[in-house]
């Protein structure tokens, strides 16, 4: 028989790892959207007529 406490620990550890991976993925995505926006628009924003 496997130890239920040990199983809970394993599940919690796996879930924590997944949550951190999702958080990193989200942050990377947000940074990418920001950087791409700046690179694509950057020069045009500066050059626009005031």
């Amino acid at each position, binding site marked *: 028989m496997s130890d239920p406490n040990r199983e809970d620990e*394993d599940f919690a550890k*796996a*879930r924590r*790892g*997944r949550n951190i*991976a999702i958080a990193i993925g989200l942050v990377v995505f947000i940074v*990418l959207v920001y*950087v*791409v926006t700046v690179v694509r628009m950057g020069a045009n924003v500066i050059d626009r007529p005031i």
Partner: protein
Amino acid sequence: MAMASAQTNVRAPARWQDYLQLLKPRVMSLVIFTALTGLVCAGAPMNPILAAVAILCIAVGAGASAALNMWFDADIDAKMRRTRGRPVPAGKVQGADALGLGVTLSLLSVMMMGVATNWLAAGLLAFTILFYAVVYTMWLKRWTAQNIVIGGLAGALPPVIGWAAATGTAPLNAWLLCAIIFMWTPPHFWALSLYTSEDYAKAGVPMMPVVKGAKSTRAQILAYSLLLIPVCVAPAFTGLGGPVYLAVSALGGLVFLLLAWRLFRSQAGEAADPRNDDGLYDVRAGARDARNLFAFSILYLALLFATLLGEHLAGLKPLELL
């Protein structure tokens, strides 16, 4: 069906590494390499950040289609030794989660590609994902012995996407890179399947040796090899490859043809001995020739693309022999 077996099998908690496994990181690295070659060979000035984002999108798109493939194919993956350890058949990840990851990453990679570069590149990326996940995985793979011939288009498109990301166009030279991978795929996979055909037969996948037999497969490998080599040398005549490329493609092509000829003359795929069933990649009688061609085909393709990449990065002038 794949979904059912996947959902009843889950035992251990899924770790992030299991989800990463769904994306086939090794295939992703090959896709990055060929897409980067297409992007660099296009020769258009491109912001390095946008170029990196384009390559990332292509890699993530390839990973997404791999996740969709693993979701749908969990039932046949579970029957083959080569694939039974994948996250879904092994019970580490639920099929529905693999599907969710594949769809989400597909949408994000295509949208990001469109915003960062252009919608031709995004459209080609979307087509590639759909072609691999729907046309190849759901239809061709289980239906016809020509599965990897037609399905090979999905693996051949990344250089065209890279080219389109850089220029917004897909000219003849971009499609030449696509043609090289497309024509390379049948001899490469059929050489492998000659010594893994029992596994495919067990799973009911109609690979060429299973359907037409080893002799016919060896003849078709030779025929495709004869067609492949002129296509590989062609970039030296169209303003894409330089002198080094001409030498590498021609000399490597001769070795490729020699190995294909030896395989054609061998008994590979026919002398499987059921008593000698220790491992998937055991070299059975005559199968050494199949393994040699399989291994060299990987080296040849890598050399072709690495040479093109090197020549363009070094600023070496293409030959333009025509």
